[in-house]
């Protein structure tokens, strides 16, 4: 490897659910594009299926690939904090995406979504749509801190609005699981006014279960993360899918690109970039519609 070439390591969780799949896609696509564009950039992409493996991946990048920069979307904050700070101590550039580390000021660049914001925006939308209150069910994600933050913020936002959460179960950000959970919610509760699916993959499953029960007219569904099919339905003014909340998987691409700029441009980009969660309504949906994205 000639000294001019900069190696950027990218470590992300494996594509085990829809959003992560989208994020994987954007990471790969950005890397392909940047490698095409800049001859002196080399990327190492690895995907991990648990925090331990992610730590191993980062160790390997340091020990064998001589990376100059690390872009990491931590599987979990705590376990990755030590290993990532060691990368920093070795004098490498560190970009952290989405999940903050447990200690501050380790990273040079922080690009993230806003999980509490995601739950809050959703909650506020519910309060707005249901001024008299109502009965809702909630499909949660995989039990993780991310999911906890979102749900807590959501609950705080609907506090005192008269909205009653009939039931909450984990749909694990998975279409099949949420389909089954929703089927059972529908058997169990004769009256449901709305569903917070908290993720578009889960919304797909829930909508299918509602369609099967023939109760489409009784309830609407709010998903999240801006899957293109959902945005399209919002855009078309579908009654059942009145809105969406952003949490773009493309943020990883942004992070990789900003990191790359340090090695190809002469203006280092650092600091915090928080990509707030925005409510998508029929009015602004077009802005968030990317028909070519896989997610």
């Amino acid at each position, binding site marked *: 490897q000639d000294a001019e070439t900069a190696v950027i390591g990218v470590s992300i969780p*494996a*594509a*085990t*659910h*829809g959003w*992560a*799949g*989208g994020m*994987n*896609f954007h990471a*790969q696509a950005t890397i392909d594009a940047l490698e095409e564009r800049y001859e002196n950039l080399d990327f190492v992409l690895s995907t991990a299926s648990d925090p331990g493996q992610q730590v191993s991946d980062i160790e390997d990048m340091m020990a064998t690939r001589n990376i100059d920069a690390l872009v990491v979307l931590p599987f979990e904050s705590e376990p990755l904090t030590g290993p990532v700070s060691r990368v920093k101590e070795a004098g490498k550039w560190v970009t952290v995406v989405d999940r903050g580390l447990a200690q501050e000021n380790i990273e040079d660049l922080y690009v993230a979504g806003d999980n509490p914001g995601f739950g809050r925006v959703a909650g506020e939308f519910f309060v707005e749509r249901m001024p008299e209150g109502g009965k809702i069910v909630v499909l*949660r994600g995989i*039990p993780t801190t991310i999911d906890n933050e979102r749900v807590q913020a959501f609950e705080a936002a609907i506090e005192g609005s008269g909205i009653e959460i009939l*039931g*909450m*179960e*984990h749909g694990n950000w*998975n*279409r*099949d699981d949420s*389909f*089954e*959970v929703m*089927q*059972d*919610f*529908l*058997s*169990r509760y004769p009256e449901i006014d709305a569903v917070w699916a908290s993720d578009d*993959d889960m919304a*797909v*499953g829930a909508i*299918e279960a509602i369609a*099967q*029960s023939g109760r489409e007219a009784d309830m609407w569904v709010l998903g999240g993360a801006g899957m293109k*099919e959902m945005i399209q339905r919002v855009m078309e003014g579908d009654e059942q899918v009145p809105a969406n909340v952003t949490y773009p998987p493309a943020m990883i691409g942004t992070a990789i690109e900003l990191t790359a700029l340090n090695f190809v441009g002469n203006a280092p980009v650092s600091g915090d970039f928080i990509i707030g969660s925005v409510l998508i309504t029929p009015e602004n949906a077009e802005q968030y519609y990317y028909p070519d994205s*896989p*997610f």
Partner: protein
Amino acid sequence: MSDHAATPAKTTSSSGFKIDFHIWGPVIALVVLVVAGAMMNPNFLSYGNVTNVLARSAFIGIIAVGMTFVITSGGLDLSVGSMAAFIAGVMILIMNALVPSMGVGIGIVLVGMASALVVGLAAGLVNGLLITQARIEAFIVTLGTMGIFRSLITWLADGGTLSLDYTVRELYRPVYYSGLFGVAWPIIVFAVIAIIGEIVMRHTAFGRHCAAIGSNEQVARYSAVHVDRVRLMTYVLLGILVGIATIMYVPRLGSASSSTGVLWELEAIAAVIIGGTMLKGGFGRVWGTVVGVLILSLIDNLLNLTDLVSPYLNGAIQGVIIILAVVLQRQKKAQR
């Protein structure tokens, strides 16, 4: 493997009683669950809920019927979940690719179904050949192919989700959602396969040969059984059944991703064993497997219909019930 000495020591007198428990154990567990469900929630026995539970069981159920044959003949297949995901992905890609040339019609759905069967057969053949010809332990072969299929679907879907063309999907949907005389298709298909499976296991040479191979491969060989061929057939059969399960699965949500079919293998194996088939082979019963599958889906359903505990603990309750369901029938061995 089976050189168990012929003489069980210290047998007590109640052998008739024990055999009953072995047979009725899973059924009793199922009945207890149904009664508990009916008491906890009035909607539990409603037509809708029963249909939901049965239809959902169909995927694992169809696969578990095939797994019963594999396990009875002393094998194991860890790859079925990933295989299902892979087949679903290939099916969707093929159907989508054919839309421009074939137009949307029954034809395209039939081609999709055929391709599921063919891919399933091929996948089963790969497992079976590696096991019978290259003589690698089934555990390792199928652990390997599990990783391979899972990777392939992730790669095909580019890490994301493969979705079936919307119009094709509308045409295909009824295969999951409608049925005959109010019985959903997946339930019908599952029932038919279970019945055929039970008949094949009990009343055909193939079923006998599976049990013989699982009990004592050497005896089977000396008794004119083509051990390798039968064993290969069990994996191929399982592959085809995974294909059929996928045919029923795809119209449900019209998509496949790397998270499709995760852990189905464990569920299918658990169902088989809960049903009374022996993991070491030599004895299998398909109806038991069906009961096992129903027990597993009922547990999930019950947990969703009630909120006795934190959802975080669902897995724990599931674990406890699985163990309890098997305790019932395992009294038999305890008295040996």
